């Protein structure tokens, strides 16, 4: 009995095997091969920035990103409106940046920004490194990138003591932003990111904070292959002492919120944005945003990026 059943089983397996077509056999081989291989998610975001925030994206090896960002004046309210054509005749901040991919995971950058607080004429050097990469099989569900920069102001020191731009040494001119960027590409259309952030400013006025922490959240929703909605928001944690002290001088802190539309045209990325923050560098817009959406004190802005590949094609 057992003999017969063994024979039937073997015979059956033989029949099944013989019915395999060549393409089905190939399917099996390919599936076997794919199983053991990790595929990393690509294009979680398009480019290295959203509205105000950075993204987890680093540049490809030997790629150069030339980036210009612009923030205009208040759209309306006391400082905007028709008299300066809804802010378009003012610029609160302008930044010109070059970033370069040393490897696919490590990007270095330099930039110059006008600066939007009392501290202006800013030079920035930055490092970005992709620590973890999201995989398609979710064995790694997130991408994590570390970012840090050092910013120095080249402006003449204010002779008046206890002002933000009163510099007694070069160190007084410096500030630093450090971030952990954690993102997940949920689908082809939607990616979400959280950004624990630490801003350290070497010299601050009395009752201000050298260290300010913030928690950021950002997202991108693709509407078409070339167009997406982007947004980012930072919840800034300041101590009550500094809030009260600035309030005495008529200044209130707000959390920066940016919303924009992103257009991608093969090599170029163009963001058309609205944000209440005036500054472009984290070192300023996170601790020092004092303009609010609710008083019409938000503005048009744009980010323009052009990527050049410096790798020789074969």
């Amino acid at each position, binding site marked *: 009995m057992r*003999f017969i059943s063994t024979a039937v089983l073997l015979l059956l397996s033989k029949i099944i095997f013989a019915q395999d077509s060549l393409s089905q056999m190939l399917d099996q081989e390919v599936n076997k091969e794919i199983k053991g291989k990790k595929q990393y998610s690509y294009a979680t975001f398009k480019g290295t920035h959203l509205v105000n925030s950075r993204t987890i994206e680093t540049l490809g090896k030997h790629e150069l990103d030339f980036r210009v960002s612009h923030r205009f004046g208040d759209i309306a309210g006391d400082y905007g409106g028709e008299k300066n054509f809804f802010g378009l005749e003012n610029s609160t901040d302008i930044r010109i940046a070059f970033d370069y991919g040393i490897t696919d995971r490590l990007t270095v950058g330099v930039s110059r920004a006008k600066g939007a607080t009392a501290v202006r004429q800013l030079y920035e050097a930055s490092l970005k490194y992709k620590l973890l990469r999201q995989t398609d099989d979710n064995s790694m569900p997130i991408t994590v990138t570390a970012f840090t920069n050092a910013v120095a102001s080249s402006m003449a020191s204010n002779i008046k003591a206890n002002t933000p731009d009163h510099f007694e040494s070069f160190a007084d001119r410096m500030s630093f932003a450090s971030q952990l960027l954690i993102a997940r590409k949920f689908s082809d259309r939607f990616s979400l990111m959280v950004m624990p952030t630490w801003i350290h400013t070497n010299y601050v006025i009395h009752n201000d904070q050298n260290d300010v922490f913030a928690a950021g959240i950002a997202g991108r929703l693709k509407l078409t292959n070339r167009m997406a909605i982007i947004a980012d928001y930072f919840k800034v944690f300041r101590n009550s002492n500094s809030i009260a002290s600035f309030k005495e001088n008529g200044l209130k802190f707000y959390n920066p919120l940016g919303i924009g539309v992103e257009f991608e045209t093969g090599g170029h990325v163009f963001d058309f944005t609205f944000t209440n923050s005036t500054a472009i560098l984290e070192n300023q817009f996170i601790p020092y945003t004092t303009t609010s959406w609710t008083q019409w004190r938000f503005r048009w802005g744009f980010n323009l990026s052009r990527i050049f590949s410096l790798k020789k094609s074969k």
Partner: protein
Amino acid sequence: MKKISKLALFAVLLYSANAGAQGKWYTRNGKINFFSETSAENIDASNNEVFSLLDQDKNEVAFQVLITGFKFSKALMQDHFNENFMETSKFPKATFQGVIADPSKVDFTKDGDYNVNITGNLTMHGVSNKVTIPAHIHVADKKIAGESKFDVKLADYKIKVPEIVTQQVSDKVAVSVNCQYEPYAR
């Protein structure tokens, strides 16, 4: 006695099962290159992970390639290729199944060079087209090499080139395939 007949049957079945794999050739590291040429920009990509089976008795061939395996010299192009052109997450593979249209022109058991035509279905970006492509088969030292060059029109596979980059991307790309087959051992 019973035991011996059992063994014999087992051996016979095993042999016949193995016979199915004979006359088949396999590679998993074949190469595909494609090249798009316009006055503004040349784009080239290569994939060194082409899977292919060749059945010399039935004169059949099958190819599969993962779209993500195409490597570009520029990383940005690779993202665009996957995201905007091939929609790789929806259509991860390109496949070809075909038969040698003129099998009398090739003798897989004899060393030599043979030029044949292969007719079959080429599928990519979710679209299948019946195509006939020329191929060169080289048999030597109990190994088979296959080579083919053909053009693919993007419109045939509903691959849309956005107007803004029509200057940079040709509407027709030149594809070349190169496979070194080994005997298929299942």
